[in-house]
């Protein structure tokens, strides 16, 4: 690990220790925040006893489904839009200001259309994450070096061969960035919609525990979400950085 990596670890560890000390010392009352060690114990119990297993499975299934949908549909849409410059020029402002609109407020519409179930959650998560994939696909296709296209022509590659052997690998780093963003947004979308209104899932379980003053369960599950999100996003980020450096070579 680099020197900065060690410092980072030390800083995070020190902050957690400080929080632990503040909670144990009674500066932060137990009714507001549990000590980090208590959260870990609670999470361990939740996982061992398995009372929230269905929630956990349903959340991760929804996240996986909606990111997969966003990545495939977003890629396909990106390819189509890239092939039609006139269409692209027209919808460019829409793509640019898409994330300025709090799309999440359309969740109630999906609730009315699909009812309170996984379909509504997946629909809003896809809506939140798909545009990140579309824009990344467009950037990736734009940045394919002209020389690669020329090489393909010199080799008289067929369209399919060129797409598979030249275009896809050349655009891959950008596509991966898109997939990374799509995953992060889908995760946020799923947890947020479960939290606001649903009958299942980790977000729902946290909101339920909050409404019942069950701080132990609430903080245990919160720790689970934080750990899952940080681990997954950091792993994707590390791969993304490697691909980006390869791009610069």
């Amino acid at each position: 690990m680099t020197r900065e990596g060690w410092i980072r670890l030390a800083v995070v560890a020190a902050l957690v220790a400080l929080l632990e000390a503040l909670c144990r010392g009674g500066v932060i009352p137990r009714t507001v925040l549990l000590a980090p060690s208590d959260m870990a114990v609670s999470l361990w119990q939740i996982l061992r006893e398995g009372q929230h297993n269905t929630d956990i499975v349903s959340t991760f299934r929804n996240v996986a489904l909606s990111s997969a949908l966003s990545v495939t549909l977003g890629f396909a849409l990106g390819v189509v839009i890239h092939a039609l410059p006139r269409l692209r020029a027209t919808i460019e402002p829409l793509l640019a200001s898409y994330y300025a609109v709090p799309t999440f407020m359309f969740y109630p519409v999906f609730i009315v259309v699909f009812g309170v179930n996984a379909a509504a959650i997946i629909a809003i998560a896809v809506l939140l994450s798909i545009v990140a994939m579309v824009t990344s696909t467009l950037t990736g296709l734009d940045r394919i070096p002209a020389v690669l296209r020329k090489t393909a022509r010199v080799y008289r590659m067929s369209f399919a061969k060129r797409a598979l052997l030249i275009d896809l690998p050349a655009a891959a780093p950008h596509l991966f960035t898109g997939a990374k963003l799509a995953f992060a947004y889908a995760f946020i979308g799923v947890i947020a919609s479960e939290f606001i209104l649903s009958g299942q899932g980790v977000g729902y379980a946290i909101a339920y525990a909050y409404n019942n003053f069950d701080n132990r369960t609430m903080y245990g599950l919160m720790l689970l979400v934080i750990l899952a999100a940080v681990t997954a996003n950091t792993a994707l980020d590390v791969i993304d950085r490697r691909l980006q450096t390869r791009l610069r070579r």
Partner: protein
Amino acid sequence: MRRLGDFILLVAGIVVAWQGLHWLAGDVALTSPWRTLLRLGALMQSETFWGHVAETGRAFAAAVAISLAGGVGIGTLLGLSRTSAIVSEPVLLALYSLPKVTLYPLVLLCFGLGISAKIAFGAMHGLIPVAIFTMKAILQIKPVYWRTARALRLTPRQVALTVALPAVLPEVLSGARLGFSLSLLGVLIGEMFASKRGLGFLITNAMGLGDIATIMAVALFISVFAIAANAALLALERTVHR
């Protein structure tokens, strides 16, 4: 002129798609553009609607102010040394991509039910992108600027105002634009979960009643505001870039 034409085409396209979806899904699921406009017109004539707007506006303004001041402050502190920037960047990115809704109960327990919880939650969303952009902007100031400032024997105050500020302004504005949209999202989600006032509450309340026209009307109102504000900030960014 071409851009104006494109814009009109885009709006027309959205309205047509909306109308098409309305025919597909039926009146219960999705109100038509025209009926949504009528509903919004009716809402805008009622006093209670503007009360909700004022409540959300107050919370949002405070959240944006905290995001900007705090984000620029934190970003400046972390950006002053290369080590602190490298140490903190992954942490900030992890915080950025965290589903912050999970932390909302914690915010509620700290601030209680009321406007301060909404402000804190909005600021949590907006602060981090502003900090990340500010930090990166300061790191990327060209070393030759510092050398020039030294050669001209500028005072620290002059360095800050005439060298550093103009150099970081475009990036900071991009961060502010992102922080602006995310604060709005944060405030609205806060209102949707636990509140008795504000536009977010209006939406969840309408959801409970199955009143799709109100949901669409409020969503349209917020979208138009968000897009207009975003366009204004983009235009400001472009003038600064020049």
